[in-house]
């Protein structure tokens, strides 16, 4: 079976609520069948608006949304056949778990036996068998969450939308639910469009991530590429931790450039800079910088430790390096640990390929 790479398609979609400000600008996004795609971005970046347009609760101001090749902009939400998991679950408080799950089937006039079968299957998928007669208020947050997921899947929709579904759960539960949702997705192969502002959630769950900011998709790629190779400084900043240096390109060739900082120069990997004299922000992941590197690295500097914070599995070290006191290092907690003390001087090194010269902040 060949998967349709343009199962859901946003075609030049604009959205404005007040006619003055565009909250979504010229959105072009293709979602493949069976894909788990996450829309990630800070609040107000337009990601939830996109989801609401796909669900049918908002209409695009301009452009079209296509589902499996059909324009759906004029189809009301109840005819789209798209499952949705809401931020606060939106379980019907006056119905039992069974009735909640049966609701989408009953409105589709499915027969009673068939409903029983499907509800049972959906509940076993989220391992909640035996909870049929409970009311939502008698369930814990995690259980309510599972019911909401089961309800969105029970009528076999082609696409399931999830609007920050794990936002109300505590950290541990959230992590286990992430895996659970991921496994459900893998086992039934439904297309999932997931909205979150939590980057670690996006990284663990998705096939691809669309990073939203300012109504635009800043980068659309798989999690590894997004983390390792951010295309601009917003993505670099938003995904994971990041050390930045602002400077000016003074020399550039194919895979290296020299960036002049306030009082020193570093070598970096030119990503979005093209020529000399351009302003740039150099981004470096904390784990790519090493203390007292054994091998030769093309950036070697000495910094002074300002703060040491113990995190259990790793230690965070804040350094004063190259005139910035915000340089962060992550030191894994291994037996060969160094003695790290405040106001100690240490040698730091990194490869220029990991220091990405991006657009200026």
């Amino acid at each position, binding site marked *: 079976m060949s998967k349709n790479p343009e199962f859901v398609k946003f075609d030049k979609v604009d959205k404005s609520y007040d006619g003055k400000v565009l909250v979504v600008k010229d959105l072009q996004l293709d979602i493949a069948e069976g894909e788990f795609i996450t829309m990630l971005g800070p609040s107000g970046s337009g990601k939830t608006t996109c989801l609401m347009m796909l669900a049918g609760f908002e209409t695009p101001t301009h452009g079209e949304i296509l589902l499996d090749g059909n324009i759906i902009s004029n189809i*009301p939400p109840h005819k789209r056949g798209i*499952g949705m998991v*809401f931020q606060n679950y939106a379980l019907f408080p006056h119905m039992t778990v069974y009735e909640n799950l049966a609701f989408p089937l009953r*409105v589709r006039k499915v027969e009673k036996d068939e409903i029983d079968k499907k509800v049972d299957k959906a509940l076993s998928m989220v391992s909640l068998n035996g909870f049929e007669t409970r009311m939502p208020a008698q369930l814990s947050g995690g259980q309510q969450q599972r019911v909401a997921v089961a309800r969105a899947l029970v009528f076999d929709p082609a696409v399931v939308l999830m609007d920050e579904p794990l936002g109300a759960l505590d950290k541990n539960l959230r992590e286990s639910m992430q895996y659970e949702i991921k496994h459900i997705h893998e086992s039934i192969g439904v297309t999932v469009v997931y909205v979150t502002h939590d980057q670690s959630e996006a990284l663990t769950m998705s096939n691809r991530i669309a990073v939203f900011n300012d109504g635009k998709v800043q980068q659309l790629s798989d999690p590894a590429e997004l983390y390792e190779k951010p295309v601009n400084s917003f993505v670099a900043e938003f995904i994971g931790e990041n050390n930045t240096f602002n400077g000016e390109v003074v020399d550039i060739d194919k895979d290296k450039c020299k960036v002049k900082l306030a009082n020193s120069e570093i070598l970096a990997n030119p990503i979005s800079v093209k020529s000399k004299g351009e302003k740039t922000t150099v981004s470096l992941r904390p784990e790519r910088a090493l203390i007292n590197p054994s091998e030769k690295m093309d950036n070697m500097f000495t910094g002074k430790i300002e703060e040491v914070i113990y995190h259990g599995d790793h230690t965070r070290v804040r350094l004063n390096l190259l005139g910035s006191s915000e340089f962060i290092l992550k030191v894994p907690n291994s037996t060969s640990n160094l003695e790290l003390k405040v106001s100690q001087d240490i040698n730091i090194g990194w490869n220029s390929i990991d220091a990405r010269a991006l657009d200026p902040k």
Partner: protein
Amino acid sequence: MSSETKQILTTDGIPLEVSLKKAEKKNKIKAFLLVAPLLLFLVITYIFPIGDMFMRSVDDKMITNMLPKTFKAMEKWENLEELPPEEVYRSFYEDYKLLAENQQHGKLGQRLNKEKNGFNTITKKLFRQIKRKKIDESVSIKEQINKLHKRWRNVEYWLAIKRTAPPYTMAKYLKGMDMYFAADGSITQVEEDRRIHRILWLRTLEIAFFVTLFSFFMGYPIAHLLATLPMKYSNLLMICVLLPFWTSLLVRTASWMILLQQQGLVNDFFVMIGLVGDDNRPEMMYNKVGTYVAMTQILLPFMVLPLYSVMKTISPSLMRAGKSLGGTPFVAFWKVYFPLTIPGIGAGCLLVFILAIGYYITPALVGGASGTLISNQIAFHMKTTLDWSFASAMGLMLLTGVLVIYWIYNKLVGVDNIKLG
């Protein structure tokens, strides 16, 4: 480990348990003192008057106190088909003589006349005989009284006296339901053309029911709008809903009179748009229409506010969920939204119905003859006939009715399902 727990002592050496109880007791007394004024107020202004009302409605002690000997003697009157024995006559004569000396005999005559028509004449006759000292106490009183008037020889009249013996009576309640104690003591309905109270009760229920219904159908959309509109509009709308609350009830009713009368604004408008002819203006006041219109308007806020407070708590995402799961907007409303508003509907309907059932001013002013309610009848007996015990009895019947409705409601919907705000 031993299962015995050691007694915990405070630093003063007093067992902690005792010390805790002491502290709690102090708090309880404090809490009670705080609510005591309210409790006292409630007792004085609510429980006591209701108790007093109840006593008044069943009280029939006046006559019991007037004829003590008679009623005592009547206990021995066994064959009720025949006239009572001499002893009863003698006791009645003695009681009556005492009343005549104290100028109380008139009251007795009136009271007995209410029990059975014709008593006034024959007691007055007896009074004149006593005044002229024409009764000879040394011979049979029975014969002398029987000779005074043929009615004294009728056992019905003596039975009527006997019926007034108990110090408490349910007669007023029966009267409220157009019934009375017949001569033989059985409960009988009054003639069909005199059953005014039953009509009033039914009309009161009917008007209260329809006013509740109209308020519900008008209030539900308003409350929904209030709960979903953005703040700046909903505040304005809220003021419109509450505006009637800030206006005197009398003023509101009077303005309805201006609007609804035959030469009023509404009729003028109907004539202007050609809906009715100028010589054929419909009567919209001094009948049920006036009562319906004015009462619905006045009671509407009591429907809107509980509905609003419930709707405000319903997350809009529930309706969205209903639609995204495939329900049409109507199904989503009917299966999801509506059931969640039932606590508000219950509270609003109960409130409006109970208020409507005892409504007084509005029906009195715009109701006319066919639009008055039981409360107007109560007021009539309070102010005009001065039959306070009857007014009390009807008031209590109204109260009982409300409690019954509350009980039915509790059975059907459950009182814990009410949400007033």
